[in-house]
Structures are given as structure tokens and as C-alpha cells.
């Protein structure tokens, strides 16, 4: 998923205020108070079936539940999926196509209604009725989804999602085995909402959920107030733990600079946006006990359009990969504490990742420096020397700096390069659309869930390329039939043997890297700057900081 969208992380490197996991004892001692969060702006609709931003997915965690959920735990433990509204993990049929969930009893929505089988069935139908952004990808494998996608309003998912009220079970059938289906069910787009929820985007009207908190007030121009859900009784600490603060006040409108100052003064507890780069030195020295740095399973990369000159030539693409100094890019991002150089698609510590770095001074496992002479030679051999190249970047300080650096690299190796910063709101869709004839760009990808396919298949699969569409996330237009077949083989293999599948993904990763459809730049780390009073900071691998598991008193 794109930058501002949901990402995942490995373990927290620094957990200065971190203590043991929440417990009844801690709850007694630290329960209460108002936590103040800040963000530059709101993040769109409150509809959990529609919103696709990290900012709100993080907030949805203590508000909503699915049949299953990513564990609300520190670090990589957050990748583990646990039963949530379901009593246990589903029973899966031998053919891997039928999942049966037994619903927990006595769970209520924030409006006091009981959660029933009917709500579960209606929620799955609603994903399609509201044309959820992942209805055609994550959930298109459910039986009946094709009809729902064709005619959203009359969606029934007949034969796909069925409930047995008497037995309290829900059965989901999919058309073919999918090793990642449980991951997809744990995403916020599959949370369970009351059956009577409008089948349209609710916008700024909060929908009652089952979590420990509920939204009591929301104004996208001002802020959001979350209070305790009076009907919540903890049923699983792993899936939906009770929280510490009584109130979470999330205010919008302050710039990053102002937010840093507010936290320094103790007027706020946390900021969603990353601190500005010119404040990092100050934060890293004077406020080091309030800074948490966490590695992300994410990827900054420069897609090269494989269908447009000069990068329709493999040698030209490889030349750029040889010439771009990853260490320089790391420095532009804020230094080696905040990012690590990478050469391949899959981030370190990710399923299927095996260190591989072919386009560097000493090809092998790790980045060892640029080889500009080799790059120049490849440009000569490709016959593309002197061609014009435009790099499209987001108009943010870091992206612009990276763009300017790439422009100077391209100039050095023999191209006539220029760089165009365009609004961050437009850039991601602009670079996807082939009509805009983008040769090279800078983009980021953050996982939806921990699976190699979420990087390789989505960013370089033939099916992810759509001519003339703003939603063609295969920005390079890369499509290699053999590699594509191997990716499909790996996905099928994952159903029965995940380890073997990961080995196959490692091969795919190497092959895609060799083709240089994109230049891998670096893998970033996440900086959380919190107030002095904030304790029990936990950084979840899947959904970042677990807001309500921190205390403010």
C-alpha cells in the first residue's frame, strides 16, 4: 500500500518507556486521563469498510473488530493473527476453500445491540455494496463476489458467506485456495458492523463498533474524540485489549513543526506525522527518551517505465541501478538511523527475503557502493545516451531532495534529466497513469499484510498493470510472463507449504531485481515523538503504535 496507507513494521528498536505488557495491575495504576494526539489533517471518511489510510487504520484498532485480528502486541508479534469476534481460528476444509467461524456470545456494539451472525453476513455484503477499495482484490475470491462486483447494490454473496443463527456459525467459501485469505479477513476492511449500517459511505458519522472505545465527536476540520465503549467487556487481550486512557482527543490542523513544539511543551502526547527533518538533531539529542524509532517493512523505490524510452531498454535500467548511491539517499532521508540501503524488492526480515544486491560495486548480498563507470558503459551500450528523462516526485522536502539527487545522477551517466515535483495528493495517481508518460518516479510501498505477494505480485505482476488507469499500481508497467507464472505458482504453493513458497518468492525477488523494473532505494524507519508523560509505548508490526495501550497517568 502507498506511503500514507497502512504499513507494517518489525520490532521496535528503542522502547524507552516500554514496560511489561498491559495487565490488570497496570490498568489499575495507570487507567484514566485524556490522551492528546495531533495530525496535520484528518484522513477522510470514518467508514472502516472504505477508509484506506494508515492514519485511520491505526485509530480503528481500538474501535472495531473482525472475525480475526492481528494481535495487539509489540513488534513482530503483531503479525500473528488471532481469533477476535470468532471464538477460535476457523475450521478450514480439506480443499482449503471453506472457512467456518463460531461467533463469540455476549459481545455488543457500542449502541448496545448484540453482535449476531446476521451482522457478520451483512458486513461482508457491505464491503461490496459500498464498493470498498479492496473489494475487487482482497475479497474477490469469495464465492458470489463476481456478481457483487458487477452489481454492488444487490449483493448477497450467495453461497459465499452464509450464517447459521442457531449454531452461531458463519461459513465463508472461496473459489480457490488462498494462503493469504486469513490475513485479508484481519484487515480493517473486513470488520463487523451492525447489519443496519447504511450501505453507502457514512463520511463523518461514526459507525458503532465492538472495540474498547467509540467515537463520540468528529469534525474533520477540527478533531475526533474517542471515549470508552460502555458496552465493552474484554474477551481477548490479544485481539481487543482494554485501554488505559479514558479519553483520546485527536486534533487536526497543526503543522509538523507546531506539533513537535506542542509535544515538547507537554501540550500533546503524540503526533501522527513524521517530525520535520530539521528538528531531528534536536529531538535525537535533547529529547532522546521521548523518541521511538521502529524499522518498517516498507520500500522506497524509483519505478522505471519499462514501456517507454529510455527505460524500455534493460541495460538503461540497470545503469541507473548501478549509479544511484543508496547511502546518499539514506542521508537525504535523515541518516542511517532512519533508513537502510536496499537493492531488492522484499524488505529485510520479510517472508521470502534473501539478501541480494546485483547492481553495486561488488555484486553480492549487500550494497557496497556505486559503479558509475559500469553505469556509463551500460548507457552507451543501450544506445540511449543523451535521451531526455523526467523524474516525477512528490512535492515534499524529502522526495524533492531525492528527485534532485536522481536528476544529477542521470545527468552524470549521460541523460538529459529534469525533475518535476507535483502535489503529494496527485503524484501517486499521476505516475500510475500511462497517459502521463512518466519515465521515472519516486514512490513508496508499505505492506498491507506480511506476505511477499503484497510487494512482488502487486507491484510487478502483469495483472496489476492497467493501461490508462489511475489505479495501475504496477507503475513500471513490468510484465514478464515467466516471472508472473512463477508468482502465481508461489501463491498456490503457499496454501500447502509456506516455507517452499517463500523460497520460490526469493527466486522471484531476484529475477524481478535483475530486470531492474525499479531501482530499490532504501527501507525507512518510523519515528514516533511522544510526550514525557506517555508510558507503555508499544509499536505493533502491523498497525504501528498501539494508541490505547499507552498510558498518560
Amino acid at each position, binding site marked *: 500500500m502507498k506511503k500514507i496507507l497502512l504499513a507494517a513494521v518489525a520490532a521496535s528498536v528503542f522502547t524507552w518507556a516500554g514496560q511489561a505488557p498491559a495487565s490488570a495491575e497496570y490498568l489499575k495504576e495507570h487507567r484514566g486521563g485524556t490522551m492528546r494526539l495531533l495530525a496535520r489533517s484528518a484522513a477522510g471518511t470514518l467508514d472502516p469498510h472504505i477508509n484506506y489510510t494508515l492514519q485511520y487504520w491505526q485509530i480503528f484498532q481500538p474501535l472495531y473488530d473482525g472475525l480475526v485480528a492481528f494481535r495487539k502486541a509489540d513488534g513482530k508479534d503483531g503479525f500473528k493473527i488471532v481469533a477476535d469476534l470468532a471464538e477460535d481460528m476457523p475450521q478450514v476444509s480439506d480443499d482449503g476453500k471453506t472457512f467456518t467461524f463460531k461467533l463469540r456470545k455476549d459481545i455488543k456494539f457500542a449502541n448496545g445491540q448484540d453482535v449476531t451472525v446476521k451482522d457478520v453476513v451483512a458486513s461482508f455484503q457491505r464491503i461490496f455494496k459500498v464498493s470498498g477499495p479492496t473489494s475487487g482484490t482482497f475479497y474477490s475470491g469469495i464465492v458470489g463476489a463476481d456478481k457483487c462486483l458487477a452489481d454492488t447494490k444487490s449483493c448477497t454473496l450467495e453461497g459465499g458467506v452464509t450464517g447459521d443463527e442457531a449454531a452461531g456459525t458463519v461459513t465463508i467459501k472461496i473459489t480457490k485456495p488462498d494462503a493469504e485469505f486469513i490475513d485479508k479477513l484481519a484487515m480493517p476492511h473486513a470488520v463487523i458492523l451492525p447489519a443496519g449500517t447504511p450501505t453507502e459511505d457514512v463520511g463523518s458519522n461514526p459507525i458503532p463498533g465492538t472495540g474498547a472505545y467509540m467515537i463520540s465527536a468528529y469534525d474533520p476540520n477540527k478533531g475526533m474524540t474517542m471515549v470508552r465503549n460502555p458496552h465493552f467487556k474484554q474477551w481477548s487481550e490479544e485481539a481487543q485489549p482494554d485501554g488505559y486512557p479514558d479519553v483520546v482527543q485527536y486534533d487536526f490542523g497543526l503543522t509538523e513543526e507546531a506539533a513537535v513544539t506542542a509535544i515538547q511543551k507537554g501540550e500533546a502526547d503524540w503526533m501522527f506525522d513524521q517530525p520535520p527533518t530539521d528538528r531531528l538533531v534536536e529531538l*535525537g*539529542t535533547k529529547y532522546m527518551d521521548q523518541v521511538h524509532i521502529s524499522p518498517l517493512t516498507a520500500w522506497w523505490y524509483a519505478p522505471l517505465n519499462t514501456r517507454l524510452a529510455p527505460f524500455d531498454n534493460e541495460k538503461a535500467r540497470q545503469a541507473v541501478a548501478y549509479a544511484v548511491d543508496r547511502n*546518499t539517499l539514506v542521508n537525504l532521508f535523515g541518516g542511517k*538511523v532512519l533508513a537502510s540501503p536496499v537493492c531488492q524488492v522484499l524488505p529485510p526480515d520479510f517472508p521470502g527475503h534473501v539478501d541480494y544486491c546485483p547492481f553495486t560495486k561488488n555484486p553480492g548480498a549487500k550494497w557496497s557502493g556505486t559503479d558509475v563507470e559500469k553505469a556509463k558503459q551500460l548507457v552507451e551500450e543501450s544506445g540511449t545516451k543523451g535521451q531526455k528523462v523526467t523524474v516525477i516526485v512528490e512535492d515534499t522536502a524529502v522526495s524533492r531532495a531525492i528527485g*534532485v539527487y536522481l*536528476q544529477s545522477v542521470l*545527468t552524470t551517466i549521460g541523460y538529459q534529466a*529534469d*525533475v518535476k515535483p507535483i502535489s503529494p495528493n496527485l503524484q501517486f495517481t499521476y505516475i500510475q497513469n500511462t497517459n502521463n508518460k512518466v519515465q521515472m518516479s519516486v514512490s513508496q510501498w508499505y505492506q498491507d499484510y506480511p506476505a511477499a505477494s503484497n510487494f512482488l505480485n502487486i507491484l510487478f505482476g502483469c495483472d496489476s498493470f492497467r493501461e490508462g488507469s489511475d489505479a495501475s499500481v504496477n507503475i513500471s508497467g513490468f510484465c514478464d510472463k515467466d516471472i508472473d507464472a512463477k508468482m502465481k505458482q508461489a501463491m498456490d504453493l503457499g496454501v500447502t507449504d509456506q516455507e517452499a513458497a517463500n523460497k520460490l518468492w526469493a527466486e522471484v525477488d531476484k529475477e524481478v531485481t535483475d530486470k531492474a523494473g525499479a531501482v530499490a532505494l532504501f527501507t525507512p524507519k518510523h519515528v514516533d515523538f511522544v510526550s514525557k508523560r506517555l508510558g507503555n509505548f508499544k509499536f505493533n508490526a502491523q498497525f504501528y503504535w498501539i494508541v490505547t495501550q499507552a498510558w498518560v497517568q
Partner: protein
Amino acid sequence: MAALILFLLIVAACLSAPLYARWAGVDPFTSTLDAVIQIDGQDVPVMEQSTEGLGLGYTPLGPTWRLGNYFLGADNQGRDVMARLLYGGLNSLLISAAATVLTLILGTSAGLVAGYFGGVTDTVLSRFLDILWAFPIYLLAISLSIVTIAQGISIGPITIESGSLWLPVIIIGIVYVPYVARPIRGQVLSLRNSEFVLAAINLGVPGHRILWRDILPNITTTLIVFVPLMMALNMLTESALSFLSIGVQPPDASWGTIIQDGQALLYTRPIVALAPGIAIAISVMALNVFGDGLRDALDPRSKVRLGRD
């Protein structure tokens, strides 16, 4: 006169940008993040990685106050700010001057034609200028820039590449046309009924000849007064557009783009944003004072007004 001298000094300094860069041995358009310079015989990195605490972040070199050796320090690409300031000034001056010429040509033509021929011609032209004037200037300029910045302009045989300096020239030149055309039209309307023009018409002198030989010379003083004032206005607009990334495109520099670069360094290296800001302020002030002086000198009774009533 002092204002003119000050402005000419700024122009001269900016024109010396290539010489300065060559003398200092710097390339103001290329990232030099790994560069190391010598100060008092000691090697100093242009970008310094923090080593204290968590070791977060980089800080560019601050002002050395030594001409030719990062006088104003480095920006976040490790480039010499002084060299970029001079190159940026050159671009800002070029764009504002060229846009001023374009505005005056278009505005004067529209004002002359509308004022002299009157009737339908005047109505059509005036309504068109009203429409143009109805848009807030910056909103119009930003809209035009966003539309053209990615793909450039291609009309028939005329193609302007997206990174070209001609794009901001044309955009700024167009949005200020009503500011010139309106007062010119007013003057022409008045001149149209003056005795020497009526005499020329009655003698059968063709309209274009009257416009060129009789009316244009009579509005020349107004046009001359417009030059510095429009240039100041255009310089501000160019800086604003470049600051918003829709004027001069990186790695080229203008005072606006340098302020934008400096925005990310306000806390640690405020000089990067302050230096071009001060340069803009001094240049605009000098042009305005010179413009006022020029107006008083050429026509003390003139009531040339820029902007809306």
C-alpha cells in the same frame, strides 16, 4: 536614483553568477552531499551527520562568511547557497523582466484597440479583461501553472517544454494584462476625443497609423512608469509560484525555490530561506521606489494606479 543604483548592483551581482560559481569551483545545480571543504586548513564536511544522542539527522554547513567558500553555507543537497542565490536572482530577474515585456505588449495592445475603436471591439475586449480580472491573481497563476507544469504547452508549431523558464514568463505575463490594459484603455479613450486625434481622423489618416504615430507616443510615459512597478509585482509572483513548485523547476534556482529549500532548514539553517527573502525584499523595494520616482519625474500629475480601485 539611489534605488536605481541599488537595483543595478543586484542585477550586476546576479549577472556575475557563472563567474562566481567558476571562481568558487562549485556546481550550484548538482548534489554534493559528500563534499568536504577546507576552512582554516581543516577538512569540514558540507553535510554533517549528528553523532550525539540517537544520531538522528543531518545538518548542512552554516555560513562561512568567506566569499568563494560556501559564504552562506550549504542547502540540503550540499550545494553552495551563495552561488544558488546569484543564479536564482538571475532567473528571477529574467522572468520578471520578460514577463513585464509580455504584459506591456499584450496590455498596451488590448488597451489601445479597445480604447480607440470602441463599440463591439471595446465591449468584447473589456469583458474578456473583466473575466481575467475576476480571478484572484494568484489563484489564476497557480491554476495555469499546475495545468502546464507537467506537460508544457504545445499549440500548433509552438512547443514549450515543461521545465522551460518561458512557462512562468507566459503565465505571469498573461495574468497581469488587465492591470496594464485598463489604465491604458482609459487614457486612449480620453486621447481619442482630443483635437489632434479628431483632426487626424477627419484628414482620413488610417486608424493603425493614428494609434502608432499619435496615441502611442502620448502613453509612453505611463508605460515607462509601469516597467519597474510591474517588474516588482512579477518578481513577487514568480517567487510565489516557484516557492509552490510551480514556477522554476529544480535543479534550476530562483529566489522562490531557494526559499522553498530553506523552509525545510528553518530551524537549523535559517539563512537559506532568509537570504533570498531579503534579496526579494530589497529588489522589490528598490524597483518600487524607482518606479515612484520615475512617475513623479515624468508626469507629476499622473494618477497611474496599479491594482484594483
